[in-house]
């Protein structure tokens, strides 16, 4: 329970907090995108907050909302023991311009986490030293975790083999391949015609 954190931030940054709640025991702050970096820095540096660790940074896609994406960060203080979730909403409904400040200068863990959010959602983190794809390959087009990306749309890097009926290659038919039943070693016998069971 870190209600005092919510109060601290609301006092220090009066225009920044859009909404806050503590559902399911998690204290959450929804912030303006413009104050994202400042609030994060405050939470790290202020001795009453002392968030030494950025536990996780991710994004969520709400295609019916404007702004469409939510960048969600979980912070944790090991010395004081409290946690908080801060969120900000970014992006236009088409997903063309999705930008938010990068907090990778504050915590090293944000570096790869922001790369992953970029890779999966297309959220551009302004000020990130090396924003490129991390889980998908550089030739991949699109952002897979967006709701409008179909889950089974593949973009193969190399062409599949030219085999007819590649979907049903042998030996998946019932008469193909190894039989059911107790196998016996047929070493030394050229014609494998033993029927067993």
């Amino acid at each position, binding site marked *: 329970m870190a209600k005092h954190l919510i109060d601290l931030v609301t006092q220090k940054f009066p225009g920044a907090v859009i909404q806050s709640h503590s559902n399911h025991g998690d204290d959450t702050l929804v912030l303006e995108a413009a104050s994202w970096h400042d609030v994060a820095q405050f939470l790290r540096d202020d001795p009453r907050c002392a968030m030494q660790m950025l536990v996780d940074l991710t994004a969520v896609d709400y295609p019916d909302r404007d702004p469409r994406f939510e960048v969600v960060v979980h912070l944790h203080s090991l010395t004081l023991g409290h946690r908080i979730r801060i969120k900000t909403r970014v992006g236009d409904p088409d997903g063309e311009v999705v930008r938010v400040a990068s907090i990778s200068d504050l915590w090293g863990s944000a570096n790869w986490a922001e790369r992953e959010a970029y890779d999966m959602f297309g959220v551009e983190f302004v000020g990130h030293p090396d924003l490129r794809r991390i889980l998908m390959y550089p030739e991949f087009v699109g952002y897979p975790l967006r709701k409008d990306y179909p889950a089974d749309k593949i973009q193969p890097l190399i062409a599949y083999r030219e085999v007819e009926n590649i979907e049903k*290659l042998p030996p998946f038919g019932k008469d193909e391949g190894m039989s059911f039943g107790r196998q016996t070693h047929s070493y030394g016998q*050229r014609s494998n015609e033993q029927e067993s069971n």
Partner: protein
Amino acid sequence: MGELKETNTQIIDPSGGQGFATTKAADLLAWAQKYSLFMYPFVTACCGMEFMAVSSPRYDFSRFGSEAPRFSPRQSDLLWVVGTITQRQAPILRRIYEQMAEPKWVLAFGTCASCGGFYDNYTTVAGIDKIIPCDIYVPGCPPRPEAVLDGLMLLQDKIQSGDRRPATVKPRHDPVQDQSMGLVQLRRSRASSGV
């Protein structure tokens, strides 16, 4: 221990019907090949844990001659593709396969390597046979070590007989046909054919 069901199996005679000495030599060569398969363990995912278990003293595939892992494709005969192959990993798998020298065989360890598993998505290759020809498929998620050993023995049989057709490791015993299981046999004709 694999046994092929077809009664009209084409015996592929590597020597082309040459004669006694050469067929015996071919047999000897096949015997040597099958009992000294140098493997290239292309391990990616969870099946790698079962691979470690199969290599450990309890199940031990080195009893079958497949003792030495060689991490260079030039020095290996059998490519074990263990685990899921993603689209990103596919070119690498293709390249490793191409770098191996003939004769070479491929064993797809696990359901992901055989047919993609339950990953029907943008990032998984639905079976390595889309990329490289595969000789033995060992299904299972992960397969039991005994199934893997079955696959290895099946491959050894195939090497001995010179058969290059792919095969799948099936359960030793089909539980559906087992009368003692008490299952209701809904299909009358299949039950008697013993498939």
